[in-house]
């Protein structure tokens, strides 16, 4: 018992160390990727017509006049490269200190701290991801159970076809098609924006479609597998109705893998939300990243968004892992 406890504590510390290492790498990558930008960000933001003073002022304000990293290999007058050490006064440490200060740097465009731009948009993205997940579950569980309990029948095949369509049709095809049907033709819902409560329906369905397809397949195979277990025969032998057997016994055990997938998919949904938000003009992190960040070359905003999305993803995966271990003791032991 004692060794087991020590084992799990050591394992936990190891996982935490890896997590910190990964987080550090993600931040470093995001910080250093900005150096790959072709051309001068100052020119991209201010335009060719700006005066040299304006350029100098912009570069100074955003630290672009400072060396990118602790060292570099600048060319001297003869065109040869030499090693140069810059010490702690560089953009890499600048960004870290901006993170630790909690403002994530200033937006290149409007001088607002990136963190406040992100906090404005974050709730909309989470709202969208949660609704997408709810819709996916609401579709997948009944469809998967019906398909699994009627294995091999017409209903099962029809459910499989629907699920396959959901997997193969990407959101940027489903989304505009939904806009066409429900906004352009039927005029039931708005094509874009986030004003009425009903505005979330189309984006959430679009974002959740692929997930609901994946979940349907999982629930189906899970139900089929559990139906073959001994406890199902016992439950039936006790004279329980088929309904009770399926929904009380089979589904309860069959949902464990589904919970894992749900957690892991949260990150996929966050990334997918970038596309969905663009389709529906949904003012979340994805739209901030694509329209304010990438399209307007506000690289500070790009850095912040990428960082926040990946950190959310890492934390979601960690929580999933913990819930999974707690749900299924068999995994805890191994």
């Amino acid at each position, binding site marked *: 018992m004692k060794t087991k406890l020590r084992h799990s504590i050591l394992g936990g510390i190891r996982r935490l160390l*890896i997590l910190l*290492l*990964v*987080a550090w*790498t*993600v931040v470093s990558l*995001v910080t250093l*990727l*900005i150096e*790959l*930008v*072709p051309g001068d960000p100052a020119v991209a933001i201010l335009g060719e017509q700006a005066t040299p003073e304006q350029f100098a002022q912009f570069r100074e304000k955003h630290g672009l006049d400072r060396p990118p990293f602790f060292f570099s290999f600048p060319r001297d007058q003869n065109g040869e490269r030499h090693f140069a050490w810059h010490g702690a006064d560089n953009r890499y440490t600048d960004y870290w200190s901006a993170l630790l200060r909690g403002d994530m740097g200033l937006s290149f465009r409007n001088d607002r701290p990136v963190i406040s731009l992100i906090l404005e948009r974050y709730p909309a993205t989470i709202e969208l991801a949660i609704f997408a997940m709810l819709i996916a579950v609401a579709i997948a569980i009944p469809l998967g159970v019906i398909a699994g309990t009627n294995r091999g029948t017409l209903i099962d095949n029809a459910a499989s076809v629907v699920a*396959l*369509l959901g*997997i*193969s*049709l*990407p959101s*940027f*095809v489903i*989304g*505009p*098609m939904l*806009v*066409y049907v429900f*906004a*352009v033709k039927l005029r039931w819902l708005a*094509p874009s924006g986030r004003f009425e409560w009903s505005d979330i329906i189309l984006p959430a369905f679009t974002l959740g479609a692929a997930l609901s397809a994946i979940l349907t397949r999982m629930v189906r*195979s899970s139900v*089929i*597998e559990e139906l073959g277990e001994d406890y199902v025969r016992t439950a039936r032998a006790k004279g329980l109705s088929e309904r009770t057997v399926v929904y009380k016994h089979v589904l309860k055990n069959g949902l464990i893998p589904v919970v894992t997938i749900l957690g892991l998919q949260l*990150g*996929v949904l*966050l*990334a*997918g939300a*970038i*596309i969905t938000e*663009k*389709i529906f003009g949904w003012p979340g992190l994805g739209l901030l*990243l*694509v329209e304010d*960040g*990438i*399209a307007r070359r506000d*690289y500070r905003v*790009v850095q912040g968004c*990428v960082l926040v*999305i*990946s950190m959310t*993803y*890492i934390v979601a995966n960690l929580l999933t892992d913990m819930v999974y271990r707690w749900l299924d003791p068999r995994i805890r032991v191994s």
Partner: protein
Amino acid sequence: MNRLTIIGFVIVAILVIVALFAHWIAPYDISATNLAMRYLPPSAEHWFGTDSTGRDIFSRVIFGARISLKVGLVVVAVSALIGTVMGAVSGYYGGWVDRVVSGYLFNVFLAFPGLLLAIAMVAFLGAGLNKLILALCIIGWVGYARLIRGQVLKVREYDFVQAARALGASDARILLIHILPNAIQPLIVQASLGMAGAVLSEAALSFLGLGVPPPAPSWGVMIEEARDLSTLQAAPHALIFPGIAIALTVLAFNFIGDGLREYLDPRQRSR
């Protein structure tokens, strides 16, 4: 082989032929605009109708197959190659190499949702076909590396490998001649699913304006151009046909991948 796998192979064969002979098959110039001919519905002259600038959608969908397959093939080939080398070396030698590759690199790459890393890279590098391919390869190799590493770990312990080692075979020979051929089967499944993934990612990035720049007839670009409300109202077919093309391609590669997996691993057949 089940029916769906065969359907998958047929669709892919058609796609390859269409992509190879696009110049002969496409009836119109893909960039010839004609505002008098815009928003035409599907007809005998324009099978898939015309778009908002009067270009023939059928011809553009056909040339789009070329972009999709090219991206898919290059991305899958390069990522599978890098992934195989990394996975094989890490699985075979173990030790600190394995700790760096599987303990660190795998975790770092899995910490990003794949699409996000591609978007971030293209955002900083700038849009373009080659940069898109580069970004997809950088996110793509990890899946293959994990797969091959697991396989190598398993095959490494087999008797014939021990026998080869006892006979004095070199590491390179053991790895290349004895282990890899026995470890590579699942890679074929992964590659097929990887084609579907690459085609989807290319279309997604192009849709976001981060992939192949317009007026290139990437299916993603065509969908992006077809989704503004006036075009949707006047010509929904401009959205539907490239959408069907993407869905069929992805479906076909998924069918092939699933079919091959069942074929190679009979235990999965009953599900």
